[in-house]
């Protein structure tokens, strides 16, 4: 059993062993091992040339990673907290995401941008945000969320091995939760761009990712005690979206609830709801419900539990889609 944080660390280590072009860079990732210790011990074992403590400049981290990738390296950047990614926005959106299309498919930028994401850990402002919709809206990026130790380990390796830029979200509130990690010889892991059905059910589909997966599973188990059979899908990749898995499930259940931490207004749930509406319209028994943050700047820690979706708010939404 490894924590999600340890699983990421092992995944990074394996990736660095597999390919000596893999380099890590970010604020405090070297000697300290990162503020969450995800890169703990890697600089000691791989050296300062491969695990670089960057200057305190997020645009600089991503911008130099692009240059390293153009030189043939496979950089993995750490953005220290979700709310610190905005200074790098131009480098991610205008440079990293567009390079392949601008060069007519000729130039790949295999850069992974790791971002500890989301709330629920009592942090101060700018340390609890869920900003995936910005990047999902940008063509040329893969945007993925791990939610378990097993996925953290395998998804980071897949992200690094792939040729596309990846925004790799790590839910902070799950960093210290332990889980089994599938051994090397257990066959190929689920592809990076595929959703996972984490709990089978026939009455309602919960569509979620990241820190909300565990909340949705708990909600499904509670609902089961009331005789409601709830399916939970961990989308894992929000861009590209595994719409086939979503469609197959909702056609079967006829009801869908999207759950994420980000504000529902213009959040990624809106895209899922639209996809479900056009693809599953004649199977739907109720309007698609969304459960997420309110359209507010992320609130102070003492009230974040009211802001974040929890088991009760998810169950309320399940009640609403089953009420019809």
């Amino acid at each position, binding site marked *: 059993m490894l924590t999600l944080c340890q699983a990421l660390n092992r995944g990074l280590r394996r990736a660095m062993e597999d390919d000596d072009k893999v380099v890590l860079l970010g604020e405090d990732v070297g000697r300290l091992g990162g503020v969450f210790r995800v890169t703990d011990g890697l600089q000691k074992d791989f050296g300062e040339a491969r695990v670089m403590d960057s200057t305190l*400049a997020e645009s*600089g981290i991503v*911008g130099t990673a692009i*240059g390293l990738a153009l030189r043939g390296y496979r950089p993995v950047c750490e953005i220290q907290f979700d709310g610190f990614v905005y200074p790098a926005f131009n480098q991610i959106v*205008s440079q990293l995401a567009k390079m*392949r299309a601008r060069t*007519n498919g000729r130039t790949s930028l295999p850069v992974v941008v790791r971002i500890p994401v989301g709330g629920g850990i009592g942090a101060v402002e700018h340390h609890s945000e869920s900003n995936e919709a910005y990047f999902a809206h940008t063509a040329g990026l893969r945007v993925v969320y791990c939610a378990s130790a097993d996925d953290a380990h395998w998804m980071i390796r897949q992200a690094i091995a792939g040729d596309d830029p990846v925004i790799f979200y790590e839910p902070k509130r799950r960093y210290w939760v332990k889980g089994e990690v599938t051994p090397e010889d257990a066959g190929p892991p689920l592809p990076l761009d595929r959703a996972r059905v984490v709990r089978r059910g026939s009455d309602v589909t919960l569509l979620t990712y990241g820190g909300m997966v565990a909340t949705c599973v708990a909600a499904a188990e509670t609902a089961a005690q009331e005789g409601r059979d709830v399916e939970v899908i961990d989308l894992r990749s929000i861009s590209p979206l595994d719409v086939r898995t979503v469609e197959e499930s909702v056609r079967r259940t006829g009801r869908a609830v999207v759950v994420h931490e980000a504000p529902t207004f213009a959040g990624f749930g809106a895209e899922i709801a639209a996809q479900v509406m056009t693809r599953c319209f004649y199977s739907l028994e109720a309007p698609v419900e969304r459960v997420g943050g309110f359209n507010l700047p992320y609130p102070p820690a003492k009230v974040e539990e009211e802001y974040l979706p929890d088991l009760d708010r998810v169950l309320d939404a399940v009640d609403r889609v089953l009420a019809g």
Partner: protein
Amino acid sequence: MSTSTITSTADLPRTSDGCIQFVTPDGQLRTDASVDHDALGRLIRDLYRGMRLARRFDDEAFALQRQGELGLWLQCRGQEAAQVGSIAAVRADDFVFPSYREHAAALWRGIRPADLLRQWRGVANSGWDPEPYSFHIYTLVLAAQLLHATGYALGVQRDGSDTVVVTYFGDGAASEGDASEAMNIAATNQAPVVFFCQNNHWAISTPSSSQSRTPIHRRAAGFGLRSEQVDGNDVLAVHAVTSALTEHVRSGGGPALIEAITYRMGGHSTSDDPTRYRTDSELEAWRAKDPVTRVEALMHAQGWSDDAFLDEVQAEADELAARTRRECLALQAPDLADAFATVLADVPQLLQEERDAFVAYRDSFLD
């Protein structure tokens, strides 16, 4: 002495304000008698040829825009010495990250007119494959390329290569945060980068005096870079300074910043109207410092050129202009349906569905 053998800038001739200058605006050579006269003559003829070809190409592209064949053009007129002097001073495998006005440097590296024009004709979002030319595509969002250059140089360092990375930017771009981040990161890592600033005095309508309280080259001290300021309209001085600082960087001395003082003779772009913000007298003053006519006067005074040479360059320039026009008119719009395959390494299901729907819709209008 050939300027490519200069490794120190200490003894180079300077104007009263400390700017390195070899040739006065009226074509007088300021270097001493130890100069290898014939070698310098050969170099100056090469550089002159590069500048004349660039100017003729630039003029033709400007005309093509005015005739509606290009959507936009950004002239490099006035900056030929800064570009040709610097690109000629570095090795062919030194990797260049340009901004978007470095047409003279790009031509010097062998990039074809068609590839320089396709982006401005609106048929592509970039021009050429960087690898064979060691010359990255243009970057339009200012100063982003300074970080790419710095990251590339971090890779060069890790490869144990003696390649130097050269990146071009302007006095406007120097105000961007990415410029400061890049110089700081390069300095703290001692990365092999030459930051080449063409201070052309204008960022669209904003004068360089409004961009920076201190001369840009003086920032280098704060970051810990070697730096020099050079007369950017003096191709020999630019060549000498770039040679010296590139070798300084190549030998492990850490990154360097060159500020070349030059002037943007045209508007920012063909959509700009510079008469709204600058005076004719300023333009006249800079016309008198023109980098191309300066070299013509120098060559004439030193006996380095004759009519045959000038005629030969003229003929070559005319041929380049004709080729530029020919290649421009042959550039065809791409098929939008092909763009869907260029976004990611594969085509995801939703993107494939969008493409198929677009193609079906478009095809519904045929016949």
